[in-house]
């Protein structure tokens, strides 16, 4: 059951990624060169709609959140390393799979590299888990908790900033 649901959700997600044209190398690197904002428009739209939907269902008691802990050392250093690899490969893990699906065969080498990167990380993990991966461990925190406001305040401010950013992009034809 969970495997079928995963496959179905993935097919729909892949379909939308392809239709949004965010799987292309030129869109990914175009964004990182700040000359094409397509992927951030796509992603931010999903996040804004998603945050309203998720918190509505949480308020109704129908789902619960699944928050990843904030660890400054791990997320800042790991995040920067990810960014370096992203700029060289031109895809992130999900989009690499999608890009292969629409015929970008070179994404295969990226996927193979990612498997090797994962294996490498599994070897490096024991040496990092008690130091680097614990630096700045702040626990599972959310923005509403940090600012001590209702989550809908954060969602509305986030949405307003997002819309201003979209208008800015459209005015500059980015």
């Amino acid at each position, binding site marked *: 059951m969970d495997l079928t649901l995963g496959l179905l959700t993935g097919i729909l*997600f892949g379909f939308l990624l392809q239709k949004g044209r965010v799987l292309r190398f030129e869109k990914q690197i175009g964004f990182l060169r700040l000359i094409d904002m397509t992927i951030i428009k796509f992603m931010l739209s999903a996040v804004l709609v998603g945050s309203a939907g998720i918190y509505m269902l949480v308020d109704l008691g129908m789902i619960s959140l699944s928050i990843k802990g904030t660890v400054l050392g791990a997320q800042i250093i790991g995040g920067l390393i990810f960014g370096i690899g992203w700029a060289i490969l031109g895809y992130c893990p999900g989009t690499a799979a999608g890009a292969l699906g629409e015929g970008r065969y070179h994404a295969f080498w990226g996927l193979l590299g990612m498997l090797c990167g994962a294996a490498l990380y*599994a070897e490096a993990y024991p040496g990092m888990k008690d130091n680097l991966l614990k630096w700045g461990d702040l626990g599972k925190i959310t923005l509403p908790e940090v600012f001590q406001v209702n989550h809908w305040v954060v969602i509305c401010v986030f949405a307003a900033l997002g819309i201003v950013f979209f208008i800015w992009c459209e005015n500059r034809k980015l």
Partner: protein
Amino acid sequence: MKTDGGWNPYFAGILVGILAVVSVLVTTQLLGKGQFLGASTTFVRTAGLAEQKIAPEHVAQNEYYQAEKVKIDWQMMFVIGILFGSFGASLTDKSFKKEVVPPMWSERFGTNPWCRALGAFAGGVIALFGARMAGGCPSGHGLSGMMQLSVSGFIALGCFLVGGILVARLIYGGREYPWI
């Protein structure tokens, strides 16, 4: 504005947001545990499954494989689904295109497919290592984390962008400053 037959990115993004929410709701109802979208852990599990063929004891002893559990799960099928969904979508509007070197890459590094293969491979190694250190990729941290207003999602995505933008500008250059 769009000439390639693709959908408006805002529209496609909104549908992804709805899909993410519906997925959490459906998995909570049917499986008892909400599944948020993510991709990078799948590479750990797949690497673990492959290593099990060669060195099963080594995988059994590795702390990281123990923590992430080497098995076929919802997320692995989700990542495989992305490939098929994208393939299907590209057939509907004839945008499927065989490509061994992307045009922007060949302007900078030439058209040798092995050069691109090496770059893609190296980039993949670095990207996934970083993603696992950060605890997620642009799906897990960027989409799912930010949707839940998790501080970790915003910090990780911010660092993905800083690292990516700096290196892309080093490699390709960029426009002067888009905000001027």
